[in-house]
């Protein structure tokens, strides 16, 4: 599975990468904001995207909408924090396939990823 990590916090990118790499998932690219996410998605065509919501330039939800227009098969996992219920709901309405709430550990992330395999 080819993954893209979208997060404006480099720590989160490192954290997610370290949680999933070594497994059967390969992180093909990272993006720091929604705009970059769309650009990199077109270039790398990952299977799964972990998408932060609060980001500069273009929010995760806007990026999600655009990416879902570009591909119907890509799976998007929203990475959210407590207190963002409404935003996740919005994301789900716009096609987010699943979501995960910070703080999370490796096993949870893997479980979400596994559930998206079809």
């Amino acid at each position, binding site marked *: 599975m080819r993954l893209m990590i979208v997060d*404006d916090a480099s720590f989160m990118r*490192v954290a997610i990468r370290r949680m999933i790499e070594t497994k059967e998932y390969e992180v093909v690219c990272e993006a720091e904001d929604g705009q970059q996410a769309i650009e990199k998605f077109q270039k790398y065509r990952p299977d799964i995207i972990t998408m932060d919501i*609060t980001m500069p330039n273009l929010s995760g939800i806007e990026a999600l909408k655009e990416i879902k227009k570009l591909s119907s098969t890509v799976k998007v996992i929203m990475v959210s924090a407590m207190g963002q219920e409404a935003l996740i709901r919005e994301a*789900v309405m*716009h096609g987010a396939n699943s979501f995960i709430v910070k703080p999370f550990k*490796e096993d*949870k992330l893997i479980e979400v990823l596994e559930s998206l395999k079809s």
Partner: protein
Amino acid sequence: MNNSYIDEPMLEAYVYETSQIIETLEQLMIQSEKVGNFSADAINEIFRFMHTIKGSSAMMMFNEISTLAHKIEDIFYVIRENQGVKYDFSTLVDCILESVDYYKIELIKIRNGETPDGDTASLTDKVNDYLEMLKEDNGLKKTKKEKETKSEKDQKYYIRPSKKEDPAKYYKAKIMFKKDCEMENIRAYTVIHNIVDLVEEVLYKPSDIIDNDQSIDDIRANGFLMAIRSTSSEEDIRKYLEKTVFLESLDFGEAEEDWYKEFEVIYQDQEIHDDIKIPETSKKYIENQKVKKEKEDIKQEVTATTTQSIISVNVDKLDMLMDMVGELVIAEAMVSQNPEVVRLEIESFEKASRQLHKISSELQDMVMAIRMVALSTTFMKMHRIVRDMTRKLSKDVVLDVYGEETEVDKNIIEKIADPLMHIIRNAIDHGIEDGEDRVAKGKSKQGSIILEAKNSGSDVLIIIKDDGKGLDKQKIYEKAYNQGLIYQSIEDLNDKDIYRLILHPGFSMKEQVTEFSGRGVGMDVVAKNIESIGGSVIVDSVLGKGTTIILKIPLTLAIIEGMNIKVGESRFTIPIVSVKESFRPGSREIIRDPDGREMIMVRGLCYPIVKLYEYYGLRTDVKDYENGILIMVEEDDRSCCLLADELLGQQQVVVKSLPNYIKRYKQVKGLGGCTLLGDGSISLILDVGEFELSNVLDK
């Protein structure tokens, strides 16, 4: 750290990023304070900063840090979402700066592998009170935190039965989510949202999963119940439901129509009880995503955080790289200057070694460039110092910064922050007078401190200039004399010598001790810190007008251009910046003073002579001036002449500090380090400043 998944790189990334955020945040506060308000961009940025810290810290299990960040995030959420909201700007800045200080301390603990255990209770309370006040003052008490989703109540996710009979079957399902999966209501919502392709109608309980966060507790306790009417096969539905993320257990099976009807009744009852007003007509579920109005223009101005392709590298690795390049330079010299090869005079070898030299020096330049960091971050910190101090001492001082883009080696930059801070504190505390005094003296009420950096050859000059009361020569001299630091009379000393006394260990004006300065740790520590990185401190002052302190700092510590000299069998290297000239004197210019000390007259000026063989007790045949050579060295306008056997040549050398065991064993004066020469022999680097220099120029 009890979490196996948190490892070193994550910790490093966390500390690095959080520190950066904190620093930027602090600067943003100081800048905003100057303007007197937060710009829309600033508010957005602060919100995002706090959001990031909240998330990252939660991931690292630093809950206190995370909670505090969450609170501040909330404050800025309110400010961002409610245009024209009134808030107490200065209290908020204070709150955030206090939090910044707290974060700094905790980050140091984390970096050192300790648990961040700082008590945030009072700080969190403060922030919390502020948030409450903010909401109250603006009548936002009831505003839901995440109110941006215009609660789409009319979007009930279930489908009304069509009137005519259909071959649909009824199913019931109960989903239990795994513990700790969080936001069970939204998870349930996801299930319902995606099941619609598969079913004719779905009813669920609790029904208020969208609007009511309390439904989480219900789902946790009783599970998420669904009544499904569908023409799809049981298997398909089951498969779909089984794919639910964080599914603890699924109870799924066919149900009686009666049961379904019953559920429907309960469902409707419940809705009435819950007092959710949903017009009967709109209960028919139509997923109408297109209705969603397009979000406001998302074109935001690109903020200061422009993305660059930058990676962060551990400084240790850079140090190692630097070391290795140093070794390479030495090895290159060893090969290309190998006496036996040189004797052969092979043209192709010459050519090849020139090429090698070119590449290795380019490599060296590049490594140096990588390690260079702009002084801006260090300078920005000073704004905070000035802010805090002027408030405490109720003085009005403005700090102007110039040349903050000047770059210095990373290792050096770390060493100058403290001295700089100390000098600026001194300037505000002792230098700049109170407002009235200033006016009485005909100065502007507002004091001024200028902080400037500029390149000057292989040095960087950092100039701190204040327009305060200046240094009192007479007073300094008297103090120093009484403290036994000098024995000359004041007429024998020039201004710079006197001002230099304030750098002397043990010297203190100690007239008034304040919270910020005058507590023993004085200018001597500043001087020592600066000298430890090969720099020097120059003090100049005009009484009544102000004081200027100049820190002269080398660009880099690691590689210097040196002049190699020979004394007996020993080799020494003098940093080329210290060498003024070298010459072979005749014995006639030599003068002896009554104590037998030798001096030499050059162009009408008198320079003391240090005979290196004598100074270090070395055996050599060259003891007279006819055969030896004198090297005139200078530091801070003070000079002397060193006597050596001969000059060996100029070369770039890699500075290695003397091993600790040698330093412990014996303090040898005048040594700044050591290096390896091209032929593999060791050369000691002379620290000219430690010799007995004399101030020839002014006499």
